[in-house]
């Protein structure tokens, strides 16, 4: 274990502990921002000298984990700034809340860094436990209901995933001497794994981690949790935690594709993915709550992610691209949802009209974010979804292509018909509405909107122009999913690369 890895886990935990003991709210908020910014700095620095993972390392930065870690770190850094503008005094306990937020960052970092399946599971479960108090932020009956559903469904899902990991582990016992459960070891010995147990393991892991990721039909906690949790938390869950669960699925996919079960895995990934997009399409149309609507677009994007993985190297590349833009987009979307909620004091779409005339900046940002969510060019999701369509076409999977395009179109229409009046429509004349707008200090609004603008701007920028370094990182991650053997061989040839 190297210094970088240690820092990535220790920094958030340390600042989280600080949040528990610091006396004033201002100090605690600065600890939150400082903690996530330091984490981001360590992550960025780690790209300058990438260390290769050895076969028996429990933790390390492999291409896939490193990419996801970076995405999660960026999201946390921006969210911590947004939270400074968003927070108000009526929290469960600000100390506990902020400590849990940084604890979630530490747990998710560990998910990305884990090379051992057992450790991976422990980290992901820790992440969902850290997230539970965050959802209960607002107290009261509705938040409680959302928390209970989240906790129970995720615990059961993750428990099934553990059974899946055990099945994968059992597939190794026929080999002879016990193999350690690291990704590289399993990939290297993949030919001798027992296919029956590996298949059962993959399915259980897909269902279990899929629950956590929010794949239909196991998504039912998602609209409740995202709708009731404070928007910055929803942003962290939709853009960060889902990626953590996605990494877990991808680890199992890596083993499966090394063992020659890629076709079997692809079938189930595509099936779950398309079903998720279709489910989202059904519930998006006619939805009257913009936070639940945003949650269903998250279900949709999770579906897009796993469909991409099922379509070979090209699809995996598109999927990695989509993961990056999903993080940027979900962050911006929930930040703006939080802003709308502060501006109008309601979640109901039918009561929120004419944002652009009341706050032009927010209106423009919201319009941009909606276009990004629906995958309009030049936003990045256009390119990732196009990549998946091209990958499906090149493999001759016409049914997949047709269903994918149709359901995405339905989501597009559903989101736009619901949300365009929110941006443009005639503002309501009720005085109570106007009264609520004046109370928010200008700097708070500024912070909230600029956080959303940063993420939206990044999504726009990376859609228009993609630097070579980003492309390479995405490509390496995609290669390691679809052709994991190459990576394992490289690690075998150069076991001692620790500069």
């Amino acid at each position: 274990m190297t210094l970088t890895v240690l820092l990535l886990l220790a920094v958030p935990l340390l600042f989280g502990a600080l949040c528990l003991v610091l006396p004033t709210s201002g100090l605690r908020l600065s600890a939150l921002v400082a903690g996530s910014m330091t984490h981001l700095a360590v992550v960025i620095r780690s790209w300058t000298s990438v260390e290769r993972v050895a076969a028996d390392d429990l933790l390390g930065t492999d291409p896939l984990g490193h990419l996801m870690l970076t995405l999660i770190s960026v999201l946390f850094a921006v969210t911590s700034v947004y939270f400074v503008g968003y927070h108000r005094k009526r929290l469960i306990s600000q100390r506990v809340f902020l400590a849990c937020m940084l604890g979630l960052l530490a747990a998710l970092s560990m998910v990305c860094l884990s090379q051992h399946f057992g450790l991976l599971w422990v980290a992901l479960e820790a992440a969902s436990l850290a997230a539970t108090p965050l959802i209960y932020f607002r107290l009261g009956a509705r938040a409680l209901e959302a928390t209970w559903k989240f906790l129970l469904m995720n615990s059961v899902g993750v428990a099934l995933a553990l059974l899946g990991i055990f099945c994968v582990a059992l597939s190794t016992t026929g080999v002879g001497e016990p193999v350690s459960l690291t990704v590289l070891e399993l990939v290297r010995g993949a030919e001798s794994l027992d296919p029956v147990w590996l298949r059962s393991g993959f399915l259980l892991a897909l269902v279990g981690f899929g629950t956590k990721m929010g794949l239909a039909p196991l998504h039912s906690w998602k609209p409740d949790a995202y709708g009731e949790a404070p928007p910055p938390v929803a942003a962290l869950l939709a853009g960060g935690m889902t990626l953590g669960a996605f990494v877990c699925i991808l680890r199992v996919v890596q083993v499966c594709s090394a063992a020659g079960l890629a076709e079997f895995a692809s079938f189930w990934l595509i099936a779950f993915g398309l079903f998720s997009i279709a489910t989202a399409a059904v519930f998006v149309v006619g939805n009257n709550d913009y936070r639940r609507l945003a949650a269903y677009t998250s279900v949709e994007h999770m579906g897009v992610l796993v469909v991409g993985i099922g379509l070979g190297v090209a699809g995996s590349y598109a999927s990695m691209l989509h993961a990056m833009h999903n993080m940027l987009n979900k962050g911006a979307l929930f930040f703006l949802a939080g802003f709308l909620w502060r501006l109008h004091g309601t979640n109901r779409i039918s009561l929120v009209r004419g944002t652009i005339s009341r706050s032009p900046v927010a209106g423009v940002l919201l319009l941009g974010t909606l276009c990004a969510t629906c995958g309009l060019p030049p936003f990045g999701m256009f390119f990732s979804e196009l990549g998946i369509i091209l990958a499906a076409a090149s493999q001759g999977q016409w049914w997949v292509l047709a269903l994918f395009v149709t359901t995405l179109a339905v989501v597009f229409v559903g989101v736009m018909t619901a949300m365009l009046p929110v941006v443009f429509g005639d503002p309501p004349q009720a005085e109570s509405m106007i009264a609520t707008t004046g109370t928010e200090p200008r700097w708070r609004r500024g912070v909230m909107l600029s956080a959303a603008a940063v993420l939206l701007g990044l999504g726009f920028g990376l859609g228009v122009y993609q630097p070579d370094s980003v492309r390479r990182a995405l490509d390496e991650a995609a290669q390691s999913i679809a052709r994991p053997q190459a990576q394992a061989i490289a690690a075998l040839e150069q076991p001692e690369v620790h500069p």
Partner: protein
Amino acid sequence: MSVETATDLVLVMVILLDLGMLTVSRLATTVRFFALQSLLLAFLPLAAATFEGQAPGMHALVIAGGTITLKVVLIPTILLRIIRTGEIHREIEPFIGFTASVLLGAALVVVSFAITARLPVPREPVSNLIVPASLSTVLIGLLTLVSRLKAITQVVGFLILENGIFIFGLLLIEQTPLLVEMGILLDLFVGVFIMAIVVYHIRREFDHMDTHLLDELREA
């Protein structure tokens, strides 16, 4: 009595306790059944180590000790305390009646044995009952989760499910590092602790702990 016979006996009792838990309506009894089941399970890692032909090592002892501390002492104490301080002591009118759920549970046990016949275990385990006992416990845990109304019973259902996975883990006891095992136990404990807090809040907020009445959040 040889190690194999003892293990078989323990696993049969575990399956019987699974079915037993489906019949009782008193919440406290369910929790006690769970504690008893966990106590039985705590001996299995020791038996598995003995079967491999060595004295139970550090690894097996720590797992057994951790299981007894958490699942036999701490978690049941927390759950019993919640039950004692509230007014509700019984599971009334579950979605699936008690008789029906026992029959369903028995069917699930049969299904588990049928599945096991198709899944060959790569290496000779300490007992051939490990996989079917594990699957039955997992399935009955899931059944408890979906068919009962009280939040506490659902927590116990989750714990039964977790016990089933623990049995399965016996097949892999040499492969899993101790660190990971401890992590799993710790996560489980913290998870149940948080669940207990949420149950407490549910009761304070609604004056009941019927989770099917938690239905305010849905599509309008």
